[in-house]
């Protein structure tokens, strides 16, 4: 990122006033810069930098029910969190979730984009239908999923449909063996976010030059898989990387649907729900909570960097 473009405050036509305006201009520019940027920066210092520094400090203290603790415990909170079975299993829960949600979102969003992009009639209608769930919150979707679709009793839609085939009612959200709860948890996020990623893919598809397809046709590439594999997919590289990274970061921060669908239960508890529980639940253990949040932040940053590296190297090798 380059520094802001050097814009002279003085237009060339300002003529004789130029000298005096310029001298005043430099001090004036600094003033105007802070008038424009200052309020934002002050807010950022208070609500982004201060919390993180404060949290770093708290993570070295024993801080039950207090944000101004006095008992320094060194790395104790970190050691506790890294050996805390519940915290580690929440990272495991996240990993299972990511293994389902990331590839499924990628493939299905791309498929929807390709389908919508090739229809010639009512395209805006189809695009809107798939995009519309973005208007719903995770709370709304969780509510529909929990009370209407995956309700464990007979009036739930899923159990009603399965009942037509003679299958017994399934308690979707509380059955641990087999872990049926993954089906509502994964499908609710798919319904909510596929449209968003589909829009990104459609924008990517429309940036592909038609001449590439014409060239491929002239060279005898078969329409369908070959064209998709050798033209469309490589051309979507930037979009694909963006979709994967955004999606993985979002999955790490999953909270809403887990909290509303299954609650704070030990079998399906992602890191944020666990951290919420220990730092804002009945105990309010802000020391361990801060340490856990920082560990999670470091993991997310490392994974993002790693992902950039992997895709960056691939690009250089092309």
């Amino acid at each position, binding site marked *: 990122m380059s520094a802001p473009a050097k814009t002279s405050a003085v237009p060339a036509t300002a003529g004789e006033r130029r000298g005096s305006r310029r001298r005043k201009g430099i001090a004036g520019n*600094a003033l105007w810069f802070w008038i424009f940027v200052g309020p*934002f920066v002050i807010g950022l210092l208070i609500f982004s930098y201060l919390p993180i520094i404060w949290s770093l400090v708290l993570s070295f203290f024993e801080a039950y029910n207090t944000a101004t603790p006095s008992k320094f415990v060194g790395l104790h909170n970190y050691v506790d969190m890294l050996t805390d079975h519940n915290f580690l299993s929440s990272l495991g829960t996240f990993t299972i979730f990511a293994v389902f949600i990331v590839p499924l979102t990628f493939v299905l969003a791309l498929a*929807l984009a390709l389908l919508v992009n090739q229809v010639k009639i009512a395209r805006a209608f189809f695009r809107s239908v798939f995009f519309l769930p973005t*208007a719903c919150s995770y709370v*709304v979707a969780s509510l*529909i999923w929990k009370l209407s679709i995956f309700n464990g009793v007979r009036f739930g*839609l899923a159990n009603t449909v399965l009942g037509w085939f003679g299958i017994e009612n399934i308690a979707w959200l509380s059955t641990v063996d087999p872990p049926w709860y993954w089906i509502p948890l994964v499908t609710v996020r798919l319904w909510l976010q596929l449209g968003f990623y589909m829009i*990104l893919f459609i924008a990517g598809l429309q940036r592909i030059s038609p001449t590439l397809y014409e060239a491929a046709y002239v060279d005898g590439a078969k329409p369908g898989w070959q064209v998709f594999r050798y033209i469309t997919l490589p051309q979507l590289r930037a979009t694909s990387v963006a979709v994967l990274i955004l999606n993985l970061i979002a999955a790490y921060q999953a909270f809403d649907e887990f909290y509303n669908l299954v609650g704070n239960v030990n079998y399906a508890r992602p890191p944020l729900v666990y951290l919420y529980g220990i730092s804002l639940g009945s105990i309010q253990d802000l020391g361990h909570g801060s340490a856990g949040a920082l560990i999670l932040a470091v993991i997310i940053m490392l994974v993002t960097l790693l992902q950039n590296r992997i895709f960056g190297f691939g690009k250089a090798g092309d």
Partner: protein
Amino acid sequence: MAVSERTTGTPQPIGFSRSTWGRVGLVLRWIALFVAVVLFLIPFYLILRNALSTEQDITAPDWTLFPSHLQWSNISELFNDTTVPMARAMYNSAVVAILGTAGQLLLASMAGYGLARIPYRHADKVFYAIVATLMIPGAVTFIPSFIVVSSLGWVSSLRGLIIPTLFSGFAAFLFRQYFLGFPKELEEAARVDGAGYFGVFWRIVVPNSLPFFAALAAITFIGNWNSFLWPLVIGQDSSSWTIQVAMSTFITAQTINIHELFMAVAVSILPLVLIFAFLQRYLIQGVTQSGIKD
């Protein structure tokens, strides 16, 4: 507009022959499309069906496609239910979404313009300090932010819900990128006429950037309206619940009737469905602009 009605990018370019396989593929693709449409619309149908049903209709063991009669009184039942502060929650959500969006756009656009256009020695350092905050994943900061907000005494208040969310490094970044590409000639013409930075920004730059503002406003509004974790952390008292927190409380506590809860859902998504109906163009632009960072 990013998503236009062109047909470029289709896997079947010019001269696609309608062979038997081509036809089978076409039929299969249409079937896939319709199945997807039905699956995506089922939850919306369920909202309407349950919102207008009686409790007996919803919990009847035999599934019916439509309720036996439309129970419009569910609306008044919802707003008259004294155990559910629905009206208050709607009001809180509206204030949070409107003020939050306006404040965030104002602060971020001014910061972005200053960074893009006002020459200042330390501008790049300020810019890096803003971009650095993008590295930190938003949701993990809720514990530290809660600590700061509770020290300010803002828990369970609209201030606490709104003010900490106003300073989006990402929005400032997007505005800076956008203003770097804004035609300088327009600004210079106004400068010749004697306008300062303030005048140029408000009279020339903002009025000529309304589609960009609308795109970011649409997606910020939806994000604010639907936001859950921060309002849950801050809304410790039912008077400061947003609609999302109110609904969530009643799913987890199960103290509300299903038909009432679904009416609450229908009411809660109404403002956003209206935005989708009238501002979808801007929304899609907002998604494409904010989804792809560089």
